């Protein structure tokens, strides 16, 4: 079973749509600035420690799928 299939098996079924992704990013972004502009350092620490690992994980999953795709395309082109 390829890496892509394993990733799809675990994460593909979650069906996180693009719209939900954007809502999450928007909420994070707004909270980040509210906590900064409101001098709410404690809340900022909570936000960073809980949200950034999720973003980090999403970057790993999404990037892995894309790199595999690009490598395959590159091989097909004879690169």
């Amino acid at each position, binding site marked *: 079973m390829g890496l892509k299939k394993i990733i799809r098996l675990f994460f593909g079924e979650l069906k996180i749509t693009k719209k939900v992704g954007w809502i999450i*990013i928007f909420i*994070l*972004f707004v909270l*980040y*600035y509210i906590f*900064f*502009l409101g*001098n709410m*350092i*404690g809340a*900022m*620490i*909570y*936000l*960073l*420690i809980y*949200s*950034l*690992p999720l*973003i*980090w994980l*999403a*970057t*790993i*999953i*999404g*990037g892995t*799928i*894309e*790199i595999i*795709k*690009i*490598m395959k*395309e*590159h091989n097909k082109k*004879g*690169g």
Partner: protein
Amino acid sequence: MSVVSITALIILFFLFLFIGVKFSKVSKPKEFLLMGRNIGFWLFFGAYTGAAIGGASTAGFVGYGYNDGYSSMWLIAVSGLTLPIFAFAFAKKLNVFGRINEAYTLPDFLATRYGEKIRILSSFISYLRPVFIAGLQFVALGIVFKVAFGLNMKYGIIISAVLILVYTVTGGQYSAITAQWIQSILQGAGLLIFFGATIFYNGGISASFSNLHKFLSPEKLNAYNTDFSIFTVWIITMGLFYLVDPWLYQWAYMAKSAQTSFDAMVAVSLSSPWGAISFIGGMLIESAAKANIISLPASIQGDQIYLYFITKVIHPAIGLFLLVSFLMTVLSCASSFLLNGATLMYNDFLKKTKITQKYDHIKISRIAVIVTTLFGIATALWVPFLIPLWIIGQGLAVSGLLVPVFAAWFWKRGTSRGAYYSLISGLISSFVFSLFAWYRKGSPNAIVGGFHFVHIGLFVSLIFMVFISYIDQQEPDEIVNKTLWKEIPWV
């Protein structure tokens, strides 16, 4: 510790080299320098975050947090706000413009609108920044090699530059972006562990919060504790600058579609929270030190705190991982700016010379990478005051480029002559004022009489643009419309 970390670095280097070799067979410069205009969302997001956060943004921002507190976070908060503006206004249109006009660089955009005369000067200004930033990253790597392995700094600089050169010159942007993505993953893990460690030393999240209030002065916990003049400088150099950042223009050209360019540009504003870790981490180190939980040397400088913390304070095994991740942070930034510099050199200088009769364009692109790396090494080894020069370089870019670029986007009445003199006058006036500030206050970045050099440069540049454009005759619509915002399609 040295043996394990050197082994880890060798393994990573061979991984990057493998990627470089894997992508080495490319047939067109746009594949080598722009990754074939084919970067997807996640790769863009990861690689950009990796490249945007460099050595200075980690070690330097920890120092800012330690010395100046919460208000220093404006530095990244401003850029975090600018990126969505850039995304909504320009990301899609630039991607489309790049495809229609085969554009590689920001000077391509200016030359399309104002003619070839403006290319060399705008490219020279754009080129300074990546070279200085690459030089700064080489210096940072040299320092790490010295601190961690006791290696002479000169050798550290040369070794690190050669390591980056080897995998960027083979696979170009393909290997640089892929490696940056891997580096950003390690960098992100390192930042999270660093942040967790600073919280751990303060006794947990709740205790961190109470320690900050107990041991730090109220001014350091206040986001508004900053001088207005300095704040406007941040708005211009860390905010407005991104609207005319040659590096950002290249990212927009590289995205695989206009929609990807937009999506990724909005998402990368989240690199701002990643940067926030360094600032708050610096504040937490200060509170832990003042609570006598950890000890720091009395004479330690702000930008040395991060390296001291990861090499001397925390557990060696974790410190080892953080050291490797810090190296990845620096590598990703250096490789991205080297490729940006190489693209400018190939597209705006070498492509126009007779060298094209002798070598094919991929070879010339590779020569551009090598030459840019050599410039980076030279600045790292021999140019003193590299940080002030980088500040001047970034300030000159915004002073000279902002008005002509915005006029090309939005002002039909702007003329080529107006843009050319706007660029020159902005550069000269800001450069002269920066030297004056350096002489008077010891730093080119200093405020003199309530003004920073970018205030002066932008004002003069605007006056010249408007005045000369109104003297000249309006230029034909078929030229003006090529870069006019409302005329460039969204997809």
